[in-house]
């Protein structure tokens, strides 16, 4: 009764294969496809192409993973119609006839006896050229053999059940089938087609596919659980939006309402539970994997409830398939449902012990030790807390994961965990490690305990990278390189040992390191170039093929020859999805997105723009919606800075439509930013303050989480206060901001804050006090290679000098002229306008300069400035 259930820790023979009416139909069709002892083009077929097409179709049917249920007869018939052409009637008639002729258990026995006849013997080397014999080790051959075996194992009761099920299966589709049958007979009386020139060698295709299958199985072993670690890479990545959530048939549970209870129609009783059959385990696993990918890619726009109900059906039909719980976890995770996610992740790992990732071959063979793999549970739980923005819990759990992985010698899990911790440290501001990692992660303790978070991060990054390299975890290596690049971009590497004579320390970042890391990360794709096609899971391949059958064929109607479409289908089979796995593309894409950010930092706007654009165009298909929104956001901001608000708002509108479904998206952030800037420029301070508050609310309330947004909100707040001439308050805000940046060692932001101080002093008329701040900001910019920010700091410095009196005008002018190349080449409209105006002011302040002599020297910059400011819709410039 509860054979599997009563044996916890062991899952039942996972590859179990049951005979269902649908499989019976496939067998019947295979019999048509490969009738015993026939000539090269057997009876119903008129051409080799047609024959091959049926073969491909059958192959796809046995592999595709588009749904959890097997298709009903009418669905099968309608698919047959797509490939059958003129044969359609014959095939579906034959199918219906055969199925309805199965009236007693004995018929089934006879059918399977006959079926055996189509298999060639294992020693059938002597093959006639024309004769079609199904190779027993080909895909279809294996399928037939599995069916035969499964049938032979059936008890008599089960055979009876099969018979009843076949009857139901036929009856369900009877009405629709009849209709479509007559419907079709009128329209489709065209001449048969001849495509003899097409000789796709079926056998070869099958062989290849089989190899693919075996590789896929091997490769999948660990990759399943990678769904969580994949989120590691996510934030700096990209993804795209495949329009329209999948349309799927959902069997709604039949809830009987009080009023409807008396009015049952007959169909209700016919619709017995035997109506739905699960596909093979392999197909379902494939389906779940695909869905997991889609959830990750689409995030919150994935249809939560529809998928949830599919999962519930699946759970009911296959309670021992624990992976369903993981999918439920993913689904609720991406819909920000903390409690359900927590519940399901625990349930999944309780049942599967983390060992289910490899079960579709055989659970016992892959060396899952008796302990189970609960460290993976910890890793996933840690990533979950990370996702929900609970840094403390995440760190605790991940620390535990490190410890348990070490105990269990699970090196790859350790590598992923380290990467996750790095991600956590770099993403969240963890100011105080409380000796968490230090105490348990021995390699770190050996270095010394007085490490700052950033130094610790550096050490961990290095180790994680090394570990991933030695374990040949290609994707992890790539994402570690990315993380390293991020570190190099934002942090100065300090020597770990701080005793001894201080050697000449160069406190600066090295852009070349960033570049190197990025390039190393992109090497990942090279790994997949050689392996090309072999990486595609052919289940997905077949699914795609079958789905294409169903696509509306609007264009075909207008094409000259109807038969053309069979032709294209056949070709589509070879020319389908891109051969590089989605996760790799995703990683690769994130490196471009990262490049855009890096160039933003370094101050090259064309390069930043180019990389963001490249990302949005090339990686849209493989990227997650969130990342794509990020790229769009960047592009919109560039527009605002360089082209003014009008264009930016137009673009924003487009983007908003595109990302309508995302709940908490980058686009929302960008919108607030734009509106705020606009309000500030037009002098509407009240609105600006309101928008600034809204922006602040987007950040999580947990300390250290969403720091970027928090910093930005404070910065904007300070700017509003400056604009309102409330300098002391502005200074207070800036001071607290500086403290926060210092606490979480956000050095790049510190440069900005220092500049803000300089600005406050400038505006409040204390130029002397402002100059040290401007200089400090300058030196920060220098050591972090922030060229654009440096130029703008120089500009501020020039303004400060200028306000000290006309005697400093010359010095100010020199400073401006020195910064002009960067300011004009890369600066935004506002910065340029400011530079021009300051330049003009310098000229005017210079006592040696007379306007009447060279009016253009002053007028030209002012004209430029006014043009730029007009685009920005600035109502009043400065406080003059």
């Amino acid at each position, binding site marked *: 009764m509860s054979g599997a259930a*009563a044996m*916890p820790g062991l899952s039942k023979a996972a590859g179990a294969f049951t005979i269902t009416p649908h499989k019976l139909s496939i067998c019947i069709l295979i019999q048509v496809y490969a009738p015993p002892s026939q000539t090269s083009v057997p009876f119903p077929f008129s051409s080799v192409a047609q024959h091959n097409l049926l073969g491909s179709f059958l192959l796809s049917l046995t592999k595709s993973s588009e749904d959890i249920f097997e298709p009903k007869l009418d669905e099968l018939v309608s698919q047959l119609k797509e490939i059958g052409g003129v044969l359609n009637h014959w095939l579906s008639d034959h199918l219906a006839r055969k199925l309805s002729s199965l009236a007693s258990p004995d018929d089934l026995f006879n059918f399977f006896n006959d079926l055996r006849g189509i298999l060639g013997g294992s020693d059938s080397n002597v093959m006639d050229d024309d004769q079609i014999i199904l190779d027993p080790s080909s895909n279809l051959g294996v399928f037939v053999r599995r069916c035969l075996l499964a049938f032979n194992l059936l008890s008599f009761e089960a055979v009876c059940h099969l018979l009843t099920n076949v009857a139901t299966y036929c009856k369900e589709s009877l009405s629709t089938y009849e209709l479509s049958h007559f419907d079709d007979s009128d329209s489709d009386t065209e001449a048969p087609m001849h495509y003899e020139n097409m000789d796709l060698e079926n056998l070869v295709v099958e062989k290849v596919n089989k190899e693919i299958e075996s590789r896929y199985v091997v490769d999948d072993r660990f990759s399943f659980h990678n769904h969580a670690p994949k989120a590691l890479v996510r934030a700096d990545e990209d993804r795209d939006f495949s329009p329209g959530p999948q349309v799927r048939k959902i069997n709604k549970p*039949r809830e009987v309402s009080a009023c409807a209870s008396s009015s049952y129609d007959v169909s209700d009783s016919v619709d017995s539970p035997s109506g739905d059959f699960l596909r093979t385990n392999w197909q379902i696993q494939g389906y779940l994997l695909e869905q997991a990918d889609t959830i990750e890619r689409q995030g919150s726009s994935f249809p939560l409830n529809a998928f949830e109900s599919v999962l519930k059906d699946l759970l009911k039909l296959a309670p021992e398939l624990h992976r369903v719980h993981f999918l439920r976890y993913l689904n609720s995770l991406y819909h920000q449902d903390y409690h359900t996610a927590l519940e399901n992740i625990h349930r999944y790992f309780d049942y599967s012990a983390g060992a289910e990732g490899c079960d579709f071959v055989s659970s016992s063979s892959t060396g899952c030790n008796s*302990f189970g793999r609960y460290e993976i549970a910890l890793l996933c739980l840690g990533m979950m807390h990370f996702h929900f923005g609970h840094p403390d819990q995440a760190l605790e759990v991940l620390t535990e994961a490190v410890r348990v992985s070490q105990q269990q010698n699970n090196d790859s899990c350790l590598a992923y965990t380290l990467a996750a911790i790095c991600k956590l440290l770099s993403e969240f501001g963890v100011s105080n490690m409380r000796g968490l990692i230090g105490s348990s992660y021995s390699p770190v303790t050996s270095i010394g305990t007085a490490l700052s978070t950033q130094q610790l991060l550096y050490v961990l990054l290095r180790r994680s990278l090394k570990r991933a390299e030695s374990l040949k975890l290609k994707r992890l290596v790539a994402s570690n390189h990315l993380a390293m690049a991020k570190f190099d971009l934002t942090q100065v590497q300090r020597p770990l040992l701080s005793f001894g004579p201080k050697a000449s320390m160069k406190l600066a970042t090295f852009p070349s390191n960033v570049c190197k890391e990025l390039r190393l990360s992109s090497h990942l794709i090279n790994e997949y170039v050689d392996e090309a096609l072999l990486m595609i899971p052919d289940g997905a391949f077949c699914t795609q093929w079958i789905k294409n059958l169903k696509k509306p064929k609007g264009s075909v109607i207008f094409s000259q020859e109807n038969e053309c479409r069979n032709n294209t289908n056949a070709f589509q089979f070879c020319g389908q999805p891109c051969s590089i796995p989605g996760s790799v593309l995703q990683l690769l894409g994130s490196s471009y997105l990262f490049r855009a950010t890096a160039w933003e930092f370094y101050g090259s706007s064309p390069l930043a723009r180019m990389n963001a654009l490249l990302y949005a165009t090339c990686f849209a298909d493989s990227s997650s919606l969130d990342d794509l929104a990020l790229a769009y956001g960047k592009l919109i901001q560039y527009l605002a800075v360089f082209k003014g608000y009008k264009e930016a708002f137009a673009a924003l509108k487009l983007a908003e439509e595109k990302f309508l479904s995302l709940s908490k998206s980058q686009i929302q952030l960008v919108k607030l930013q734009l509106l705020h800037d606009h309000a500030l420029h037009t002098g509407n301070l009240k609105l600006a303050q309101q928008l600034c508050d809204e922006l602040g609310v987007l950040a999580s309330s947990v300390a250290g989480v969403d720091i970027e947004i928090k910093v930005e909100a404070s910065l904007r707040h300070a700017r509003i206060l400056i604009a309102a001439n409330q300098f002391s308050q502005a200074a207070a805000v800036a001071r607290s901001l500086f403290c926060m940046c210092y606490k979480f060692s956000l050095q790049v932001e510190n440069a900005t804050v220092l500049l803000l101080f300089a600005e406050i002093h400038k505006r409040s008329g204390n130029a002397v006090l402002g100059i040290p701040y401007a200089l400090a900001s300058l030196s920060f910019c220098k050591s972090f290679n922030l060229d654009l920010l440096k130029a703008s700091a120089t500009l501020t410095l020039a303004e400060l000098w200028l306000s000290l009196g006309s005697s400093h005008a010359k010095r100010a002018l020199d400073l401006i002229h020195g910064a002009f190349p960067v300011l004009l080449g890369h600066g935004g409209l506002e910065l340029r306008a400011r530079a021009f105006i300051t330049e003009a002011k310098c000229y005017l302040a210079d006592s040696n300069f007379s306007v009447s002599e060279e009016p253009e020297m002053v007028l030209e910059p002012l004209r430029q400035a006014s043009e730029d400011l007009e685009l920005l819709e600035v109502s009043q410039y400065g406080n003059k």
Partner: protein
Amino acid sequence: MGIKENCRNELRAAVRQLSDRCLYSASKWAAEQLVGIEQDPAKYTPSHTRFQRGSSSIRRRFRTATEAAFTSTPAAGVSHLTTPSVPEDDNEAIDNDFYLLAKSYFDCQEYRRATHVLRDQTGKKAVFLRCYSLYLAGERRKEEEMIELEGPLGKSDVVNHELVSIERELSGLRKNGSIDSFGLYLYGLVLKQKGSDNLARTVLVESVNSYPWNWSAWSELQSLCTTAETLDSLNLNNHWMKDFFLAYAYQELRMHTESLVKYENLQGTFSFSNYIQAQIAKAQYSRREFEQVEVIFEELLRNDPYRIEDMDMYSNVLYAKECFSALSYLAHRVFLTDKYRPESCCIIGNYYSLKGQHEKSVMYFRRALKLNKKYLSAWTLMGHEYVEMKNTPAAVDAYRRAVDINPCDYRAWYGLGQAYEMMGMPFYALHYFKKSVFLHPSDSRLWIAMAQCYETEQLHMLEEAIKCYRRAANCNDREAIALHQLAKLHAELGRSEEAAFYYKKDLEIMEAEEREGPNLVEALMFLARYYKAQKRFEDAEVYCTRLLDYSGPEKETAKSLLRGIRYEMDVEHPPP
């Protein structure tokens, strides 16, 4: 007296009516209660009263406290107001012949034949029996199919194929008002299986309001009341059967005190009811009053030696008290009575577990689960066994299944936490401990387990641990682990005042219970030192002198402490 007589008459009729409709378990229940009513000694001969065995020794021992409470109320039958009239049986002779045949078939478990015989009958009784036997036929087929159709990944969703047609017929009957309360019960049953819980609840309420003596209907209704709110929202007529229902429902909702009060009230009328005794035992068991439970079960077994129901709980008590021979005796007895009852297997499993033969124990638990896959305590107990066998993944799996069957099973949550803690994942385990503590906040063991989790060297979150221990100390911590730990943790954190407070409290309890041991010595030692440091030398001296009673290094330390105290006292108050 009239109340008892009334109940007796009602039950007598009910037993007849229920067994006439083949509702055997309900009629069994009714008959048990019937015999459970205290007989009027004036009317019956001694032989009769002797049948009502062993007198009420338990009551004498345990009920004195509540005695006063329920004598002041007018006994159990407060809610008598609307005793519905007993329905008349339809009596057409020919119909009756068919009915008799059908009933005989039914009794021989030939359900489909019974249905067939009654195919054209329209009497209410006949319609009910037809539908009921059809339902049972469907159920039996379902059980068979469950095995036949087991899919590669566990069960496929087998349902009773007859449900639809039965539901259609019964809903029609209900519409035109020609349905009796038995039909309503069956209708409710069908609706519940089809998942329309709300309607099922309404229908079952109708059924029990019109015919309250059908215990099966009540228990179906109970299973639909998963929260106290749903229970309160039921619109039930007052009847003494309602008290049985409420007591049962309270128990399932873990409102043990309320349930106990109800049962004790009912015992006023049904003073010899085995059922009520067993239920009281159940409630006491969940309050961990093992002594009382044991007494009740002993009495129960004396009266009803072949009883198997609820005996698994008795075995748990015996297990907890480590009564080897009593447990083996019980196992032997149930084994002889009916070895293929899940309870029997569970008892044997418990016995082997107590003997330390965990493999065999698992085998019997597994057998119990084969007989009833939803047998909650067997899953949990099997989890315990796997923990003993160090097979943690299997243990986790077993516990998880228990939790998925009933998410309120705090024992299984606790087991999960323990299993993970064993694997060195204390932080992960906390999730489970939190769950279990949430469900059963009055159990000190759970709080202590959680505190120990926080205390592990990996987590070392002592503040949280202290909070948990404090909760544990507040809820009746018998072994006084919590107090001791609290004292120790506070001492560790340098808060000597709190530490002294807890050590003192701990000491008081240990003194009261006359317990000795290292904890006592530790407490004395700390207090001696503490008071010395506080310059309360007299107190310090008292503790030091007590320490002198013990041998070992403590004695020496105490001596030197005493010397120090004397010296300091002399310094402060030089002797005259």
